[in-house]
């Protein structure tokens, strides 16, 4: 039963997939569609159900209800070995009684692909480990094991590749290199990748679509730029990058904008960037969209101004500086300023006003609960 070596990426569809463990719901009714050949990143805090989702797609866990479709075919009842899916496991799961090369060749041998060893060697070369081909996995470092796991799955060119934090144990340089490598392979062969990661930068950088998962649900899904620019929930706003959030009753509504009263200050957001326009509304802004000034800026309808406050903390993070500004009655605001040598003040305790353009505000569908800050 020889199979074609080079498979095509296939699309994946989850229909109301749900997984309950005794007394615990790990995944709540998940609907998801990943088109063939897409690089899809699943992002979320620890324990939110990412691995469980991947396991259901791979066939290692049976959904409590719902359907899994690969290439339009319902595979919910198929065994793992019957599915055109490979997984890079979070714990690597390398076979300890086989050499590195035999580990990589395992899937090829099972599918009776021609020349398994040369192909496995080529895959090892790709992850720069061919010099360790004859070692046992336990003789490798964590990062090397992770790369073997990557090679072992990639070499099969599966229609759908599931990657469960496949780069977590690598140093920054190797990580970047592997990211490029993965992206290359993915676009070259047109495989579908479902990539689970903690690293939001990695997700934003590599993926065509990013989904943010929390408590077994997908909070928001979309192109990385869109997700970052217009988070719809407090969780996404806080999990993906940083946000300053302000909650208040809606006071003004025009055809263009709405304004809330945040502890006596008026904060405005464009109607095109809000989810909700009545009652209590949370409006946010990204720290790099805010500026601070030593004198009070003139009030205008295109700008939100808060202040005065005091700089309580300055952190130099390389290309930009991060300022914490404490405004009485209002709280803390984070501001990123590009480190280009023209930052106005850098002294702790200096009195400043914070402003940002109305067009950069975004309105959320829910209100922050405070829980998001823990992450």
């Amino acid at each position, binding site marked *: 039963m020889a199979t074609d070596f080079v498979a095509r990426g296939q699309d994946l569809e989850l229909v109301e997939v749900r997984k309950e463990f005794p007394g615990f719901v790990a995944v709540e009714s998940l609907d998801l569609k990943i088109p063939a050949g897409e690089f899809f990143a699943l992002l979320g805090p620890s324990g939110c159900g990412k691995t469980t989702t991947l396991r259901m797609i791979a066939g290692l866990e049976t959904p409590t209800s719902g359907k899994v479709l690969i290439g339009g075919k319902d595979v919910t009842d198929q065994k793992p070995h019957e599915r055109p899916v490979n*997984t890079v*496991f979070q714990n690597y799961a390398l076979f300890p009684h086989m050499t590195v090369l035999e580990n990589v060749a395992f899937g090829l041998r099972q599918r009776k692909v021609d020349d398994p060893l040369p192909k496995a060697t080529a895959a090892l070369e790709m992850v720069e480990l061919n010099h360790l081909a004859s070692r046992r996995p336990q003789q490798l470092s964590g990062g090397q094991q992770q790369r073997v796991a990557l090679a072992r799955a990639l070499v099969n060119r599966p229609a759908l590749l599931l990657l469960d934090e496949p780069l977590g144990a690598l140093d920054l340089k190797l990580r970047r290199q592997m990211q490029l490598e993965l992206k290359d392979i993915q676009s070259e062969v047109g495989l579908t990748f479902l990539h689970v990661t903690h690293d939001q930068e990695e997700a934003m950088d590599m993926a065509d679509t990013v989904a943010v998962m929390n408590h077994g649900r997908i909070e928001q899904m979309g192109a990385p730029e869109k997700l970052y620019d217009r988070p719809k929930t407090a969780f996404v706003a806080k999990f993906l990058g940083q946000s300053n959030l302000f909650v208040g009753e809606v006071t003004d509504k025009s055809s263009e904008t709405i304004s809330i009263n945040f502890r006596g200050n008026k904060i405005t957001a464009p109607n095109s960037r809000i989810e909700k326009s009545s009652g209590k509304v949370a409006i946010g802004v990204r720290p790099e969209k805010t500026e601070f000034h030593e004198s009070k800026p003139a009030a205008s309808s295109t700008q939100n101004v808060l202040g005065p406050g005091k700089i309580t903390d300055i952190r130099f993070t390389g290309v930009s500086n991060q300022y914490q500004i404490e405004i009485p009655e209002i709280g803390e605001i984070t501001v990123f300023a590009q480190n280009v040598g023209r930052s106005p003040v850098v002294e702790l305790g200096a009195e400043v006003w914070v402003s940002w353009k109305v067009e950069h505000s975004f309105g959320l569908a829910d209100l922050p609960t405070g829980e998001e800050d823990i992450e």
Partner: protein
Amino acid sequence: MAFVALGGNAPAKAQTPTKTGRVALYLLLPGLFYLGLFFLTPLFSLILTSLKAPSPSGEIGRYEVAAEFGNYLYAVGQYLPQIIRSFGFALLATIIALAISYPIAYFIAVKARNKPLLKGLLLTLVIAPFFISMLLRTFAWKQIFSNDSWVVNTLKDIGIFGSDSYIIGTNFAVIFGLVYNFIPFMTLPIFSSLDRLDLRLVEAGGDLYANPFTTFRKITFPLSLPGVISGTLLTFIPISGDYVVASRDFLGGPDTAMIGNVVEANFLRIQDYPTASALSVLLMAAIVVLVSIYVRRSGTEDLL
């Protein structure tokens, strides 16, 4: 913080290997002394006895020190069928015990892994026979299989057995008894190997297109090999020397004697100590040779 403290301490201890080495040597001394006294001394005495010649006085059971290597030739010539039978029975019983034990061990270690109650119960059942003396248990089987027991009578009634058929004293009875007595020694080591098996590796096998049978053959079984090897050794070696089950007092008959029975008869009844000793030495040497070939062939020295 606590982890840092612990981590910091560990290497400091390992930094004095010479001292630890010497301490280890001292700790070994009692063991070495014990081994010398209780293993080497009897072995030496056994070899000495195996080379003795009959006393010139002609008195039965009296022998004097000699270098009578002919004792070995005599022992082999006289008892070759029993020697072959011993290893044949041991091999057969080991294979049957493995076939029965592996599924049991697999079920307890893998299928019942997340059910502590069931697992504990099954493990207790496996070792339960040890609560009763092996002699008593073997004797119980003698009763069950005896000539007018309900087992034999039922077999006769339903026509499987002729009116003059019997079980006690047959090869079947002996092999049955051997398998029965040694199954826990096979099951427990296999269980402990399978208990340590990382099931995520089995999942990885399935993920890499191996069907359940192939996954078993290529992953589960090789990883349980250390247990299989200890289990087969722990059954094969004692079975080759067993003298209870095959004895006429238990499940054996005139045509089922194994080396153990011959040694027993020579020592205790005929009082031919040199022949009995020669047989013991031969048995030991044969086991050492067989076992070392076996361990080498199975290629798992590093796993043991």
